[in-house]
């Protein structure tokens, strides 16, 4: 038997799981190999010491905390329960989509492109409005001058009336 094989079978040997023939082989190896015999002796001592460790009692304070776990959970549950109502789910879904869209705009490098595009559209819209306003202004002016022209024409068309007035 090799030392490696001896080590592999150590626990099985100590727990009496080996066959009689294997057990005799182990003993024969330990009789000729001092390091394996020493390991066996230390292992026996280790196992003995491990088995002798008694169980420790948990403190009263710990037991009180453990008993209180359901109470604690019950206390916190109603406070946040309203958030779990099914009718709030569409609201959460809408906010989630909105936040995801906003995060694309504000945090991603590509988002700056989106931001620029939005700005461009806003400026375009603004300039369109300005142009419309300017056109509207010019139309008002034109209407004013048209009105004056019409008034002058009427005045020019009725000279006799003007003479009668003089008389």
């Amino acid at each position, binding site marked *: 038997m090799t030392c490696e094989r001896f*080590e592999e079978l150590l626990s099985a040997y100590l727990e009496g799981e080996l066959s009689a023939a294997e057990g005799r082989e182990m003993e024969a190896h330990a009789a000729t190999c001092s390091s394996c015999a020493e390991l066996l002796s230390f292992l026996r001592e280790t196992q003995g010491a491990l088995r002798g460790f008694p169980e420790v009692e948990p403190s009263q304070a710990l037991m009180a905390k453990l008993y209180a776990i359901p109470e604690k959970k019950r206390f916190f549950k109603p406070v946040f329960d309203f958030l779990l109502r099914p009718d709030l789910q569409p609201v959460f879904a809408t906010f989630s989509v909105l936040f995801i869209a906003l995060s694309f705009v504000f945090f991603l490098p590509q988002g700056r492109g989106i931001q620029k595009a939005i700005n461009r559209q806003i400026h375009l819209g603004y300039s369109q409005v300005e142009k419309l306003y300017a056109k509207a202004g010019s139309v008002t002016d034109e209407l004013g001058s048209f009105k004056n022209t019409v008034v002058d024409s009427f005045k020019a068309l009725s000279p006799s009336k003007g003479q009668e007035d003089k008389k």
Partner: protein
Amino acid sequence: MDLNTIVRECLEGRQGAWETLMNTYAKKVFNLAYQFSGSRQEAEDRTQEIFLKLYNSLAKFDFQKNFTAWLLTLAKNHLIDEYRKTKWEKTQRDDFDERVLAQGSLSGPEESLVQKETRALIWDGLNQLSPEMRMAVILRDLQGRSYEEMAEILGLPLGTVKSRVNRARIALAEVLKEKRGELS
């Protein structure tokens, strides 16, 4: 009362069911945490966290399975995860209480002294094992679990569990040999 009945009653919120579950398992889980971490304070914190996790996941328990093995798997996973996160190996284990060390069937004062010293060395030596090896040796030699139960708790084949326990014991024996060498 049957364990499955207690668990069902806990799920229904029946008065006293959770207390019964605590009386059955608190000591086992606390000792597992204490033996694994080596610190009483750490063990108290971990035990609370484990039972909080248990309370939250109790509804997921499969009644076809063994509840004790399921709880110990949860405890084992939590202890090893927390160990990896906080690296307890850097912290010292508590000095093992001498009154506890002196307990057990001893034949005389001389043997008592040797056993006391061995237990103290082994207790400190547990920190030199990897978390997996430490857990294996604790479950087998300190908690007295069968290899079959351990295979269920650790989620490993029986052969792997046996070989891990053997390697852990040899490592601990080597630590004892080394520490004895340092002392003499």
